[in-house]
Structure formats: C-alpha cells, structure tokens
C-alpha cells in the first residue's frame, strides 16, 4: 500500500504582525513550521501503514529549497521517503497551479492508494488544494475527515459536518483532508531524528514532471493578488474596572438592548 501525505511549510501565524505604518508584514524572527493540520495527516498516514502491516508513506511538498526542513521533520516521525517539488517555475502558484504541480508529482510516483492532506494551511486558509489535486488525478475525495478505517481496498470515512458527521464508504485510490479530531500526532524519536538528518530527499523540478510550463507558477494561476492591507482595528471599547457589584450592573445596562435586539 502506498500512502502519500502532502504537506506545506508555513510561517507560524501566531508570530506574524503587520506594521501599521508601512503596511507590510513584520517577518523578522518568524519561524517556519509544518502546517499544523498536516501533522494530523502525517500521523494518519503512519497509522494506516501500521494498520495495513505493510506499505510506504511518502511525504511530498512544493516550495523553495528551504522546505527541506519541513520534510526532514516528517521523516523524523517515521515517514519512508520525501519528495520536494522545487523550481523557480513554480513560483507564484495559486491553488490551481499548486494542485496541478502536486498532481503531476504524485503521477510521477506511480501507483498510489491513499493521499492525505491537512484540511487547510494556516497561512492561506483556502482548503482548496486537496480537492483540486483529487480532481486533477480523477480520484474521489472526502474533505474534513475526522475518522478513517481501512478495510482492504476501501476506506470508511467520517466527514465532519456542521451538525454531526457523514459516514462514507470510499474506494481507493482516494484523497482525504483531515481535521484535528482524527488523531493525536506522535513526537519524533531520537532515532527518527538521526535517520531524518541523513535521509536523501528527492527533488523534482519542472523538467522532471509531465507538465505544460504555461500551467505552472504565476502563469498557470487564474488568480492574482491585487493589494494587501492591514485589517481595520475595532474602535476601543469601554472597560469597567472595580468591584463586581459595580461592574456587572454597568455591563448589564449595556447588554440589555443588545439582547433585546434594540441595537443596530
């Protein structure tokens, strides 16, 4: 059984701030991490391999050379091999051309049974690449998966809906995007870390993939970023300090019209 986990290296968004004077992001000292949702996808891939008792887990990412760090983190968890799709030609990809490039990378791997992704990346928050890859590969998809059970050549998936969950029977090969309910990611072992340090990472550029250059990077991207700006700050509110016997009645006075729907 061959499992592929797609991951993305992202800036740790807790740390990203905008400079309100220059309207630019303050990036100094912002660490790069593996997209947190992808950690659940990696864990699920490893658990599926363990449940099947055989097979390989391949981690794949698209990005600049420094994404190698993220791939090594995945390797330290016990992933079998890592592929980095990296080429200047991929630069500026929106979700369409990212899906296109990743789909081409997966095709080059040959036969694949399961593709796992996090439900979305925390920098873009689009949740679009997983379904896009599935469509380009012509395979079924289930997004927002909170439980997966492998039964031979099919998988039972629980899809988290707003008010409960759907149970779906999915023939393989298929792509799943996972939410954090699905498992508890493991920590790397010391042995895993040592192994990851020495592991060879396969790097494929545009020339290694069966792709049309026009569909890559910015040129293959239907969307463009027109402008970037700081969100408006809410006007400072009223803060009550002091004894509860004083503060609570003042708050209640403000809240009653809100609760009665009297405010605009």
């Amino acid at each position: 059984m061959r499992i592929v986990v797609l991951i993305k290296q992202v800036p740790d968004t807790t740390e990203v701030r905008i400079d309100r004077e220059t309207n630019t992001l303050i990036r100094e000292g912002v660490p790069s991490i593996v997209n947190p949702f992808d950690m659940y996808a990696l864990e699920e891939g490893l658990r599926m391999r363990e449940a099947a008792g055989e097979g390989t887990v391949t981690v794949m990412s698209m990005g600049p050379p420094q994404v190698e760090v993220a791939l090594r983190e995945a390797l330290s968890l016990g992933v079998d091999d890592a592929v980095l799709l990296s080429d200047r030609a991929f630069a500026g990809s929106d979700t369409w051309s990212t899906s296109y490039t990743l789909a081409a990378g997966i095709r080059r791997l040959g036969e694949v049974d399961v593709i796992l992704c996090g439900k979305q990346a925390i920098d873009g928050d689009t949740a679009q690449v997983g379904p896009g890859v599935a469509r380009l590969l012509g395979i079924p998809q289930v997004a927002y998966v909170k439980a997966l059970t492998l039964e031979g050549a099919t998988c039972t998936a629980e899809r988290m809906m707003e008010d409960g969950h759907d149970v779906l029977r999915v023939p393989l090969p298929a792509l799943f995007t996972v939410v954090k309910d699905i498992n508890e990611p493991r920590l790397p072992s010391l042995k895993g870390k040592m192994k990851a340090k020495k592991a060879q990472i396969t790097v494929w550029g545009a020339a290694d993939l069966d792709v049309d250059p026009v569909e890559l990077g910015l040129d293959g991207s239907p969307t463009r970023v027109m402008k970037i700006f700081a969100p408006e700050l809410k006007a400072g509110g009223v803060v009550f300090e002091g004894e509860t016997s004083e503060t609570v009645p003042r708050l209640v006075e403000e809240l009653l019209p809100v609760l009665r729907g009297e405010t605009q």
Partner: protein
Amino acid sequence: MTCSASRAAGPRSTDSGEYRVSSIEVVQDRCVGCGLCVSACLYDAIEMVDGLAVINDNCTLCGACVDACKFDAIVLRQAQHDAVSLDEYRGVWVVAEQRNGELNDVSFELLGKGRELADELETELSAVLLGSSIAGMADELIHRGADRVHVVDDPALLNFLDEPYANVVAELITRHKPEIVLTGATVLGRSLIPRVAVQVKTGLTADCTGLAIEDGGRQLLQTRPAFGGNIMATIICPNHRPQMSTVRHKVMSALDADTSRTGEVVDETIDPGLLTSRVEFVEFVKDLTQTVNIADADVIVSGGRGLGGPENFHLIEELAGAIGGAVGASRAAVDAGWIQYSHQVGQTGKTVQPKLYIACGISGAVQHLAGMQSAKVIVAINKDPDAPIFKVATFGIVGDVFEVLPALTRALKGSAAE
C-alpha cells in the same frame, strides 16, 4: 485577445512586452540598496547582497516589491496568455446549499450580496439548486432575490457527495457561462467548489469578507483575510471565468423574503453519467451533544483557560442558558480536554459571527480573534487588564470570572424575565 490581455494587466505597472513565462528581475544600475523591497516582501524572498537586492527562489512574483521600490529597479514581466473570451460570460450565480430539505441561511445571504452585484453589473441573478425532491425550495430562492433558479432534482443528489455535485455544477457553468459564482464557505461548499473550480479551470477565492465590482469594469474584487487574520488581501481573477468565491456564514446580509417576487424555474437535464459517485453515502450521524451549532448562533458565551478546569464550565453553560446562547471555547480549553472540539472558536475551530460574543477567561490569542472578531458586540471578562481580548472588546470587565459570571447570570436571568 488584446482587449482581454490589457484587462489582465495587474494593478501595478509591468513590462508590457510579450512573454511566454513570467519573471522578475532587479535592475542593478538602479538599485540603491535601500531595502524597501525587503520589508515589502511578504514571503521573505529578498535579501541584500553587497548592497544590492537579490530575489530568491521563494519569490511568488506577487509584485509587492515592485510597488515598494522608489527607483523602478525591479521589473516584473508578466506573460500574457490568450484568455477565455470574457464577454461570453454574463450573470451572477449563487450555488444554494440544502441538506435534508432545508436551505442553509448562507444561501440567502449570498443572494442578498449577489442581487447587489447583479444590479451593479446590470445582469441577472440566478441560483443553482441540487438535491432530491427539492422543487418546492426554488420559490424561496426567488423570494430572496433570485431572477432564475436552475434546478437539478434527482435521487442521486439526495445526499451531498463530491463527485456528482461537482460534475453537475461544472456542467451547468459550462452550459450557461455565468461571470460570477458564489458559494457558502461551509463544509459542503469548501469541499465541493474547489473541485468545480479545477474542473472548469478558473480561479477561486476562499472565505471572502468583501465582494465588490471594480470601478467602470466587470471585474470582481474579492477581499479576504490571510495569515490568521493579520492581513487582508484583495484577489482578482483577470483572465478566467467564472470568478468564483466562497463566503462565510453571516458575513453578507440576506434580503427579507418577498413572496410577491416572481422568477423563472429551469429544470435542467443532466446526463446520468455525471450523477454517478464512487463514494457511497452510508449515513448521517447527528451530534447530540451539540444542541446549538455555534456557527449559527446569535449569542455565544465562550470559556477559556481562565476557568481553571472542566468543573467550572457550568458557569459558562449557566450564563448561556440565561440568555439563550450557545457555548463556545478557546483552543486552550479544548486542548486541555475540558470541552469538545465542536465548541472551539478560532482559526483551527469554527468561525462565528454572532450578534453578541462573551469571552470569559480568554486572553485573546490572534487565532482566537480570527474566529470571532466579526461579532457585532464583543464582551470580555478577564482578570488581566492587558489581555489582548480587551483590544477587540466592545465592553469589558476586568475581574475574576468566578465572581463576575454568577453575578452576570443572575442579573440577566432576572432581566430576561421582566
């Protein structure tokens, strides 16, 4: 195609020659090494080497540095490709969402916004309705602003399955060529519509909080938060149609139902081959622990780390009970196992837009704020006067949640009984 190509030119000045592949370059003679581009770069892709800007491989060709450079030292060459014939595409569409015979409110909100966009473009607003035995719902969509409803009513569409739903929406887009397609950023919408966008080969912008038509044109300006709500980006889709966006619940306003409105209902015939699904629907299991879906709630009372433990969550439940609200939680409370994930508000949980949000013992990490800061009225109760939550709060109480919450519950319960 020169007409569409010129429309394609982005908002910034670019080299207007013809290129097959786009590129960016620093003109060394002009670069003074001021570093403006380095701080303008969102991707940390520019560094100074020997007093000159050098653009690294992680550049995304976004052009922020071109705008920032005061010396015209960075040249972005955008390849210009034959675009689809944009003028063939007309009309605004809303993909309506129904499950179990009930339309989701987000569909009405999208029709409200869609009506505004269609009027500005002097075109029609249509809804797309998929399901089984759903014909009766078409009128509801017309009452909420649709001029026309494209209905595909088939037993194969009884439950939401990605493949048939995506095939049908893509087929209808190809058949009727709308210029704008709006979908709710729900689980259904965010699963379905990326598959459709890839299928019809166009751009898709997720979770838009603002939609507007460019001055004097037909281009849709799609504004959305990124980087956990730290920045806002306006996205365009210059050369492909339709322009597709998803919009979260409660971001747009629905029109009141007007039962005197009339419109056209079109029964669409779909090739049965498009209705097949490899994935089989087994069952839907309702979450019984969740009596109110927080994403739909008008009032939410949320608890965080400041509650100290699961045994104190009853304080949140009691206040919520007194004012008819739903119970929410911060990530810290969920990660500690005090309450289920379905209650989590924030970037990795649910995004909520209630009329009233009461945050109790929640400090207000950026990720939490990203999930609730569009609430109309925000109340913060926290003992730390410097907690970031107070920066977004409409009203706040600096105090001990164990004292304030019971007092507030008592006071509001009494008032509600008036």
